[in-house]
């Protein structure tokens, strides 16, 4: 009886966040650890969702699922530092600063994009707020546990908080051109940050004064300022949508002035121009492999961006920002071999350990090391080959994608009788405006 009560109590306490974990033994594969070399004919054992052993001739009990991966390649589950999948809403495009909103309130575990990402070996993604506002909302790092019903179960509990910032055309277009308010220029964008940071600083001082008894009346609680104050305290990593070299330098200068060090630039198409400055600051850069020229601020781009950044000492990653690219990030990473001649390990670091560093989760995922979480992707060929086909994708030791067990009901059938509503024209065209989802609707009336 006592035991049952304890069990019930345990479920009450941990039930909400208890993630399903599993045991898997992968046999006879080429194991690409990314951080500790590549092993031929090696095994990987995952126990209770964690990597327990990596080596040769590992055996496991009958409760462990065994995958014969002879001739296949095992790598860490791929991490996407910039996506908008699994989200019901992306842009709270109503104010140049919306630090108080959080995409974690709008998670959608039924988004089929999660499954498609798994089918490309991606186990973790950074579900981001859009780029309509200079200071956007807070983001959520999720694990691709496709099949869960509770949005909470997508969360990577314990991952550092992150927030979306945006520079350049998007906030200028939405607020300056669209609403006739600051910012309409890159000069204005800078001032949004300086004002927000300064006001948050004053807000913190008001609380300090109140808490130390210096003042008797507490300041009015303000979630927006609370959030920006957390950035100043170093509790939140800034992930900033950016393209041009000038604006990248601007944000680094603003951050220096306010003592902010946790900064990662997103897209950062002109990052190659200021790679030495990015390296000196210690800012990350999460880039497209080859997207360019779809808007003016990316006209002066080069697909060699990732290679230049990496070779100049910047922690660089390749991201998707797209429900399409997220399906083949392994191929996107391989493009750095065509454009810049990166080694296999350098190229793979761009979609594993480096995005993990940018999200502050590199102690848990991003490489195959004993003790890390059991997130693994298995490919038919070397994952940087265009002919590689993902075979299994495993999250916390649970197989979430298996190419040989891919029944139609893995996908959501909205209405099998309905021919009309489910077919979308133009899915074949890249949507370069994922970052502007929910924001462009504001302009359709015009």
């Amino acid at each position, binding site marked *: 009886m006592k035991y049952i009560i304890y069990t019930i109590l345990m479920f009450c306490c941990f039930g909400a966040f208890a993630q399903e974990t599993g045991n898997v033994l992968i046999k006879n594969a080429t194991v690409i650890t990314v951080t500790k070399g590549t092993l031929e004919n090696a095994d990987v054992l995952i126990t209770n969702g964690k990597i327990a052993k990596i080596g040769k001739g590992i055996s496991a009990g009958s409760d462990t699922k065994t995958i014969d991966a002879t001739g296949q390649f095992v790598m860490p589950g791929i991490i996407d530092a910039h996506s908008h999948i699994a989200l019901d809403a992306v842009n709270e495009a109503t104010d140049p600063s919306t630090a108080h909103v959080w995409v974690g309130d709008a998670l959608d575990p039924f988004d089929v994009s999660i499954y498609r990402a798994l089918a490309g070996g991606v186990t973790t993604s950074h579900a981001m707020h859009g780029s309509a506002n200079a200071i956007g909302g807070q983001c959520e790092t999720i694990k691709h546990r496709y099949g869960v019903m509770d949005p909470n179960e997508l969360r990577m509990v314990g991952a550092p908080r992150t927030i979306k910032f945006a520079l350049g055309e998007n906030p200028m277009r939405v607020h300056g051109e669209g609403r006739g308010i600051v910012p309409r220029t890159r000069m204005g964008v800078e001032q949004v940050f300086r004002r927000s940071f300064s006001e948050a600083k004053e807000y913190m001082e008001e609380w300090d004064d109140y808490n130390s008894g210096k003042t008797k009346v507490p300041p009015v609680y303000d979630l927006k300022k609370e959030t920006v104050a957390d950035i100043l305290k170093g509790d939140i990593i800034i992930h900033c949508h950016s393209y041009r070299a000038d604006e990248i330098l601007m944000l680094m200068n603003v951050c220096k002035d306010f003592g902010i060090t946790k900064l990662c630039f997103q897209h950062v198409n002109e990052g190659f121009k200021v790679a030495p400055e990015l390296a000196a600051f210690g800012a990350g850069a999460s880039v497209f492999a*080859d997207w360019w020229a779809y*808007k003016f601020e990316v006209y002066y781009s080069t697909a*060699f961006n990732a290679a230049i950044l990496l070779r100049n000492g910047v922690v660089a990653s390749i991201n998707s920002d797209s429900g399409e690219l997220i399906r083949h990030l392994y191929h996107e990473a*391989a493009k750095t071999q065509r454009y810049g001649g990166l080694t296999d390990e350098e190229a793979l670091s761009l979609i594993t350990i480096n995005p993990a560093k940018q999200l502050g989760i590199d102690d848990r995922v991003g490489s195959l090391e004993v003790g890390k979480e059991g997130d693994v992707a298995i490919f038919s060929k070397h994952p940087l080959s*265009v002919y590689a086909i993902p075979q299994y994708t495993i999250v916390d030791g649970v197989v979430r994608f298996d190419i040989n067990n891919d029944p139609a009901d893995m996908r959501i059938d909205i209405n099998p009788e309905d021919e009309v509503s*489910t*077919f*979308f024209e133009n899915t074949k*065209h890249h949507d370069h405006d994922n970052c502007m989802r929910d924001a462009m*609707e504001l302009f359709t009336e015009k």
Partner: protein
Amino acid sequence: MKIINIAFAFFCLISLNAQQIAKSTYGTFLLKGATVHTITKGDIQADVLIQDGMIKSVASGITAPANAEVIDVSGKHIYPGMIDAGTTLGLVEVSSISLTNDNNEIGDLTPHVEALTAINPSSVLIPVTRVSGVTTVIAKPAGGLFAGTASLISLVGYTPDQMYAGFKGVVLNFPSSGKRGRRDRRSDEDIKKDTEKAIKNLDKIWTQAEAYAAMNKDKSIADYNPEMEALKLVVNGERMLMVEVNKKDDILTAIKWLKGKDIKAVLTGVTEGYKIAKEIADSGLPVITGPMLAVPARAEAAYDASYTNPSIMLKAGVKVAIRSDDTENVRNLPFNAGFAAAYGMGVEEALKAVTIVPAEIFGVADKYGSIEEGKMASLFVSDGDPFETKTQILNLFINGWNVPIESRHTLLYDEFIERSPGLNKK
């Protein structure tokens, strides 16, 4: 001191040159010692002689003519230049800036507007594309129902005439019964009505075009009517109709619509061809499909539907060419083909789908699409399989021009891999 000045001037000259793309050169070139992937006649060890813009000879041990530039490519590979059977290259420079978009004229009946007129030979996107080994592309308008006349162009030259590669086709955006996008709030009923109305309109235009063609058979006697003059070429079978259609039901409707019309036609897009591959094969219509690197058009479609689509159609007996349907990233054509190859098509067939097959569809297989004596010298040298992501393209020839492997992207790399000045001004 003088020497230093001269040296300095020379140095400046070099730096200046690094900021612009080197010139293409024309002449006699002998490529010695590569594996030649002819496409039509297997893979052979041979030399390739390029003269007067053409492939003069493909044989082992060719003796270099006196004026020839000999290029040692032993251990390397020669492939015919890839043909992208559907792009907006040259017509769109920066897609979000509408005034740089010359692909979408106003109106439903603009078959007479010519892509070739608006192609910008100096588009920054063109060198970025060709250094991937894509030498020849369809530049197509995308506007209304009859959107305009597409052109096949070679990616070398400074005037549209220099670029024109001998094929034109009229684009028909076949009425779609799919949703236009996430923001399309029309009900199923509304969509059905809209589609029926659009097909009625199409039929009406076509009836007019047939009547016009009959009345003006030998020479035009009617008043100025450029739209009908353009369609007359299609009705008479002199110009191909490129029918853009993607949804299963719409493809079937299009096949039915084309049946009995004695015209040259090709289906383009064909996203859901895999669902009705046999029906397409039975129609005898060739297909230009792509991109493979696209999300499936339905949430419930298999995750790899767009990867496997070309292979399923090919296996059912359809003649399949692959396109990127892109603008700034037409360079990803080989990767689209690579995915098609991996997901069932095989490398050999996928190679044909970006070389000889589109050349045959466009009626230019006597000039392009394979490495054979007498064809235009549009080919490239690589250090391996051009679909493999890490492969480097080493030499590029388009219509006999030796084109430098340079683009904005390579030039920026050269300038910034080791920036000078670096972090400190010194």
